[in-house]
């Protein structure tokens, strides 16, 4: 378990920040949780992060804002978006913009695993 890939979770909802890292650990990833995009960008984990699980709607910088910011910085971290707002227009837009997946909350552990598999199989 030494070389576990780091998956960073960014969500302003506490339940998600508490629950997802445990699940990711169970999946065999290392996990870090951040309550905002700004907090993530300021952290030392940006470079190490192999995958981002990113909430769409957050106070301050939103998920798509961070997606654009990272693209500008040339840091193409694969992104799995999660959102509690069920809007059918969102998913295609985000995928179009380069996201690996967009999951609607509540999503099952298997759905998440499928998304992560896709990310890491691709890399």
């Amino acid at each position, binding site marked *: 378990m030494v070389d576990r890939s780091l998956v960073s979770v960014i969500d302003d909802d506490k339940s998600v920040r508490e629950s997802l890292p445990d699940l990711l650990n169970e999946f065999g990833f290392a996990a870090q949780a951040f309550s905002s995009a700004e907090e993530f960008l300021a952290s030392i984990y940006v470079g190490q992060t192999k995958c981002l699980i990113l909430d769409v709607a957050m106070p301050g910088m939103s998920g798509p804002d961070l997606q654009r910011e990272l693209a500008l910085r040339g840091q193409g971290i694969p992104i799995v978006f999660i959102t*509690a707002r069920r809007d059918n227009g969102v998913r295609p837009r985000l995928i179009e913009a380069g996201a690996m997946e967009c999951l609607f909350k509540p999503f099952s*552990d298997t759905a998440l695993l499928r998304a992560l598999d896709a990310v890491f199989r691709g890399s």
Partner: protein
Amino acid sequence: MENELSRVVDALPGLVWTALPDGHADFLNSRWLEYTGLGSEEAKGKGWLAAIHSDDMPHLLEYLETIVASGETGEFEARMRRFDGAYRWFHFQASPLRDPMGRVIRLCGINRDIEDRRRADEAVRVLEGRYRAIVDGLPAIVTLLSTDGHVEHANRYMLEYLGTTSEEMRDRAVGQAFHPDDRPEVLKRWSHSAETGVPYDFEARLRRADGVYRWFHTSGFPLRDTEGRIFLWYFLQTDIEDRKRAEALLFGEKQLLEMVARGDSRSAVLEALCRLVERTASDCYCSVVLADSSGKRVEHGAAPSLPSTFINSIIGRPINLEAGPCGMATYLNEQIISVDLTSETRWPSWCPMALKHGLQACWSTPISSADGKALGAFAIYHKDPKTPTSLLQDLIEQFTHIASIAVERVQNDAALKRSEALLAQAQTLSLTGSFGCYVATDEHFWSGETFNIFGYETSANISFKLILERVHPEDRPSIEQAIESAANGLGCDCECRLLMPDGTLKHVHFVAHGTRDHSGRVECIGAVQDMTAHRRSEEALGKARSELAHVARVTSLGELTASIAHEVNQPLSGIITNAGTCLRMLAADPPNLDGARETARRTIRDGNRAADVVARLRALFAKGNTVADTVDLNEATREVIALLLKELQRSRVVVHTELAGDLPAITADRVQLQQVILNLFLNASDAMGGVEDRPRRLRVRTERAEDDHVCLSVQDAGVGFGPENAERLFDAFYTTKLQGMGIGLSVSRSIVESHQGRMWAVPNEGPGATFSFSIPCRPARPIGVNSVSAIRPPAETDAQHIVRTL
């Protein structure tokens, strides 16, 4: 005998004396002696002369000599000294006494005291002199005429005025000095007065010494003697030339102002004005020029007596300092006087032309508007060099003022006509008429558009009766009331319908306010607007607005659902993730029991959080500020059907309505109720989404229920539910639908319960289910709603939810 004679002589009423021809007295009666206080011996001889006033002495002696020489009786008056030294006048009468030879041998005389008479005469003389002085001194012309019309006396002023003497006057025939035109009437009136004694009173022109006629007012009064016979006519003549002139001027001004008021053309007024000044000032020519619309050049105003060649050379000249006196006066807006054009240097091109026409003096005065702007100039020309007198200056001031009134009036008239036309057009466009009326006398003043609105001819004689005839019978009482309040000087603001002769209806809006005119009468002034088109568009607007409300309602339901979804999805997400983690931890080898316990604890916490959201959601519809409205449930249902018709058609749902005809209105929040109905319809439609073997029939029914309730039920032919689930249907998160949240029915029930009603569901005997609610027509308690944000959990320090639109 001698004694007897002596007594007679002494008794005579006078001082009796005799003297020798040489003047030596030889007898003086006792009255003489008593008066003078001289002794008889003392007075005899030359002694008597001591009693004569020294001033009268020479004449007296002369007189005595005359009598002696002529032998005739003579009379004389002289003063005699009384015994006390006082002198009194005496009348001396003496006769000569002759001897048989005819020689005068003695003078016999008698002196009578005439002092009192002399004094009276003197007093009369003084009085006469004073009267004459008064008559001569009167600042009027006074003439005394004998009854046959001869001048008895003419006072100094009369003589000076006529330039004649009183002697010449005496020979003049009556009326000779009057103007030939006036003379016949003067003579006629004089003979009438002379015959009847009626006082004479007439105004006529009298020729002055220099030949100028001036107007005089003559009053004549007869003087009568004690027996009432006229012995003299007393004439008083007053110079009224200035008054006559002022009257003529005033009359002329009045005529001019009348012309202005009548709206005569500007040129007619200005021409009349020029003529009036020419008549009044004599020997002059007048002209008026006006600034043209650009204000840069002069245009013709009037010049009735000037040659056209002169006028034409002035018209079109620029308004500046060089072009001529009128242009300069207009340019500077001040009076320009040129006393002698032969020595004038200011207008080199204009002067020769004026001189060529024989004009040598020009006074040009600006015609100024009320606000002081120069409109043009009024000029007076003379054939000889001339300076205006102050009298003429007054005249000029007066007439430039009238000219300015005339010019401005024309301009104002034009402006007024324009503004009237604009107002009429504005009234036509805005369908607004104005009116005024004296309520007490039923007098009305209407604008053209008011007549239009009421559909009356402008010639119609408007009265309240006529107005009320047009008003729709049902609205008459309110208009009668408005008229009454107008009569009391109050305003009114009311709407009513007019029933036109062709049967159409007009909606009109009256606004009026009461006022009092200068004489204190109550006048009502107001406007009336034809609101028919406005009303129609208002109705259309209302329809559009309610359609918009329908859309908003759907949107708000969507918003509500989205918000609810977001709030519930968050904890649900935690629950599912934790549950999955828990399972995996337990499935691990060895099982991670501590981790599983922790995730299970978090699962419970998130579950509670979701329950909290739903509890708040219920609370939102159970209380709060609901808009209580009178709602016709049938109408509300029809609106929902209309709103969903497309959606239902797309889902191939056939709607059957059975709406009760006798449904009472209910007090409810219309929007909330429609959300419930909408939800029931959408649920029914969703429930039949997979139905292919039978018609997707949706039956909606309204009916009266017991206890003053109304009931609505929606029956579908969908998947239905088992009887055991009938209550769980209304629990939050219970759903039979793949897409459903299980929130709709829960919220709907909360809404119904907030209306103190009941909601239930029963499976159909055939396929599908029926969802119903019943609510009381009049709720016992108030009903209420909150905002969607009330369902959100209390803000967590690190979990604030801001929904962004992507």
